[in-house]
């Protein structure tokens, strides 16, 4: 910790990252490997997705972190609340991705407290873009972090979804997006099932279908674990805030869908 007296000198820069850069630069140190070093095996987050529905956006992720062909964690949470009206879904190398989500959350809260006002959703999305760009040298050495950012835009009155590339390029998607090793499979699934103005129940169904499809096709993505009782993380972000979808509700939808799939399989066989 710095001597707080020294913090008194600067007039109200509301950025927490700038504050760290001035006073505790070691906390922003980038992870960098020697050029040409053998890439290490690190835990990767696999599938996260976001989709728009009638009241805002749904964000969801499976619970598995994968290290090469091994399961690194069965219970990782990939959707993190950034503030009351937005969230980040982390995909890529889990360590730096989780750190980025934590720093981003602090950045937004710090801004809100210093300024006494919230950043616009666009402003938050741009800030995340800068943070991904800061990570570019590490990304070039394999430590890739590519989150999804989604939230409710109070000024426009709609849910909005942003995806990124490793250079921090920001692209808005109006309907849905999925990222990570199972991202393409989840997107294929969403492409067939997503419709405009889905109700909450339908949105949950479509979300879980996509995660089941991703787990089906991608070895890295974890399916629902009925033995251990581990189910995907699902959050909703609406005008009234960031909410958890209760695990019981997720479990019920998962069981219904699995039963339907089992029945269809039987009918076909």
């Amino acid at each position: 910790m710095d001597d707080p007296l020294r913090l008194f000198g600067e007039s109200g820069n509301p950025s927490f990252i700038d504050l760290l850069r001035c006073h505790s630069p070691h906390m922003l140190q980038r992870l960098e490997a020697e050029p040409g070093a053998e890439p290490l095996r690190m835990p990767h987050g696999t599938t996260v997705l976001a989709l728009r529905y009638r009241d805002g956006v749904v964000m969801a992720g499976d619970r598995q972190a994968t290290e090469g062909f091994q399961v690194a964690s069965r219970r990782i949470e990939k959707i993190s609340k950034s503030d009351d009206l937005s969230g980040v879904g982390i995909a890529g190398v889990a360590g730096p991705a989780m750190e980025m989500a934590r720093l981003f959350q602090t950045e937004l809260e710090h801004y809100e407290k210093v300024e006494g006002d919230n950043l616009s959703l666009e402003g938050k999305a741009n800030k995340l873009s800068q943070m991904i760009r800061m990570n570019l040298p590490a990304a070039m050495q394999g430590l890739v972090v590519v989150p999804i950012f989604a939230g409710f835009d109070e000024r426009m009155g709609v849910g909005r979804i942003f995806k990124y590339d490793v250079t921090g390029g920001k692209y808005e998607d109006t309907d849905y997006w999925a990222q990570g090793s199972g991202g393409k499979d989840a997107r294929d699934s969403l492409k067939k099932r997503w419709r405009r103005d889905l109700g909450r129940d339908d949105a949950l169904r479509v979300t879980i279908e996509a995660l089941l499809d991703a787990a089906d096709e991608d070895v890295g993505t974890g399916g629902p674990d009925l033995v251990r009782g581990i189910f995907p993380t699902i959050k909703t972000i609406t005008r009234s805030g960031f909410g958890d979808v209760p695990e019981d509700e997720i479990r019920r939808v998962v069981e219904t869908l699995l039963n339907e799939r089992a029945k269809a399989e039987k009918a076909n066989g």
Partner: protein
Amino acid sequence: MTAMPLPYYVSPEQMMKDKAEYARKGISRGRSIVTLEYRDGILLVAENPSTLLHKISEIYDRIAFAGVGKYNEFENLRIAGVRHADVKGYSYSRGDVTAKALANAYSQALGNIFTQDIKPFEVEVLVAEVADVNGSNNEIYHILYDGTIEDEKNYAAIGGQADEIRRFLKDNYHEGLTIEAAVQLGVRALNVTQNKTLTEKDLEVAVLDRTKERRKFRRIPPEALAQLLGSGG
């Protein structure tokens, strides 16, 4: 040959006395703030007709700040407090950010400014931390312009007529207040020093609400405040 002008000699006692008097004069012009512990947390009430320039603010999950005196000076202290808390919470964990450490930092800062700078800060601040659910106690720290720090129980008052307000609260405060009772008592305490009755338009009110998730700080907007003041009072 020119004579070297001798600097005036002022005894340290006199210098401190003058500075203290100067700071107190500045603070006594400011309107007062009271804070009260109630059943579900800590309530802060300030006389403040502005809805944009706050005297009461959030510092961190369970910590609030209130300042009286010169706005730019306590605003500086507030921002320094937010920075202190956010850096600490990010380096360690959210649970490691405490009002005690923050109050100490304020005390050090104000003490240094008082002894080293020509002009002392004309401020008094309160730092309040609401207990978390598992049984710790609420904490209220009162820091003066010269770095003097006190920890207060049940209630505290700062600003121009703080003594009078404290006397009133001593006679009228009891533990286990509901939010309505606490708001009404807080406003009555501020009224003691007034010729007029304060309404929701003259007040800034916020709580550290123990029942809330993570960030306990919540402002009470004028409409809700009018209701609280109206009910049973």
